[in-house]
């Protein structure tokens, strides 16, 4: 009887020691793991302002934001019509063009293929818009995935028009 109690007490002590030990090891490892996450200086570079007054219709400029290219395209009338006319049922990742471009003339997107991160080429591919040369994803004039391995549409970053000719990204 007393032996049984003793062994139960000992089991409890062992379990408690292992538990505390595991928590301690976890706490010691976490800083070693977390140091690899984006640091404060990287996080600080969160907004970029771009002057778009010189961009002609049908032209794209590419700017760098958080180390990634941002496509800013001033779309032509036919491109806007084409993007708006697409039946949502035909899309892999259905999204209305009007949701993607607040001002239909300006399409602002992260220029990173959602497949494996290459930069798509402009005015190429089956939809005369963006085509990723790495693994063959085709995007339409709204930057939506139409064909190829990419799972989602080109990402729209957070942005706003500061005035008529300046876009603030981030």
């Amino acid at each position, binding site marked *: 009887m007393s032996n049984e109690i003793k062994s139960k007490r000992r089991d409890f002590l062992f379990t408690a020691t292992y538990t505390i030990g595991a928590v301690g090891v976890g706490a010691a490892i976490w800083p070693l*793991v977390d140091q*690899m996450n*984006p640091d404060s200086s990287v996080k600080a570079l969160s907004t970029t302002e771009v002057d778009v007054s010189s961009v002609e219709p049908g032209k794209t400029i*590419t700017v760098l934001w*958080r180390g990634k290219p941002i496509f800013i395209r001033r779309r032509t009338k036919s491109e806007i019509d084409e993007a708006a006319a697409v039946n949502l049922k035909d899309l892999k990742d259905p999204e209305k063009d009007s949701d993607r471009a607040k001002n239909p003339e300006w399409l602002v997107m992260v*220029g990173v293929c959602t497949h494996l991160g290459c930069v798509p080429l402009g005015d190429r591919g089956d939809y005369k818009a963006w085509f*990723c*040369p790495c*693994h*063959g994803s085709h995007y339409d004039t709204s930057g939506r995935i139409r064909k190829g391995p990419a799972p989602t549409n080109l990402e729209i970053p957070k942005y706003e028009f500061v005035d008529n000719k300046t876009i603030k990204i981030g």
Partner: protein
Amino acid sequence: MSEDKYVPESKLAQWFDSRLPLLTLSHHLRGYPTPKNLNYWWTFGGILTFFLIVQIVTGIILAMHYVAHVDLAFNSIEHIMRNVNYGWLIRYVHANGSSMFFLAVYIHIFRGLYYGSHKPPREMIWITGLIIYLLMMATAFMGYTLPWGQMSFWAATVVSNLFGAIPLIGENITAWLWGGYSLDNPTLNRFYSLHYLFPFLIFALVILHIWALHVPGNNNPIGIDVKKNSKETMSFHPYMVMKDLLAMLVFILIFFGFVFYAPNFLGHPDNYIPANPLVTPEHIVPEWYLLPFYAILRAIPSKLGGVIFMFASIFILILLPWLDSSKVRSAAFRPLYKKFYWVLVAMVILLGYLGAKPPEGIYVILARIATTYYFIHFLIILPVLGRYEKTDPLPTSIFDPVLDEPNIVDKFKKTAGEYEGEKVDTFK
């Protein structure tokens, strides 16, 4: 392991060996019994050890001149190539050495597949070998990033984005790998740190690999167990050492053929353009030794699916000792397996070819066929063969195939007799 108890000759050596038995270890390694019928496909273990040492030595030297910073890395490589004494040689040896390392490891792996070296009791040799292979791929991938050229940058971008395919936490993982929102200076620094570390992990695993080898001893082309310390074996030194050295010399000739006459043949010209995060090269390809896996990645028309199949194509090999259930090791006695083996080799080479081609039209279709076959080979063909294949009778000794050849003993007696000037009948 040799069973005799080793005692060094001199008193000093005895004193040392009884405290740190390095001499006993060396004695064991030299006397390690190897089957007499090992062919030249068995020399690649030694060749691989040689290349590991070459890569570590040249790598340590390159690290003395290389600067791991996005603004300086590319120029520091050019500095090594143009200014550092013999820098061009050391870098070309390091760069081509990695290719030769992979060439040798592929031969080594396919030799194992052919002769059934992954089968009991050698599963742990096979598995430690696969871990070494995985570490080699990680090391090579990170090393390829360091010059910070266009191919470096985009290959690293594509590969690190593979982890982005993981549901829910994918983006957090890529940010953690990069230390930012894209491949940048923090990424380059950590890749450099790990590129320096991993070869030493490989070195440690090589020791485990050889340790695991020395427990059951070598497999052999006949694939039957040999009796250790019998007429069927001979000591590793000097017999196998000499054979290994000869093979190594031939391999080194090929290696230096590349280094001196075609140092950039296996590389990509785009990597002599500094990395530019705004422009992806028209046609990005990984290094040749990763092409089959790249082809599998692109053959699957889904991001997550492609990533899963690519990793599965490697991890499936860990299960191989249990998937390939045939009791007969060597393909020499497995008529059907031998055929399927060569189909697999052809498919892997085809996948490698397709991985270098643009992902469109017939190339995608062929890649899908070859990928499907790859998995069918391991998951269906091998287990079925293990059960139903009618194997040829196994010899009882590794000498049988030699001695069974008609009249070989008579021929030998005749030649030897002529040489000795004796009558054939009386020669023993």
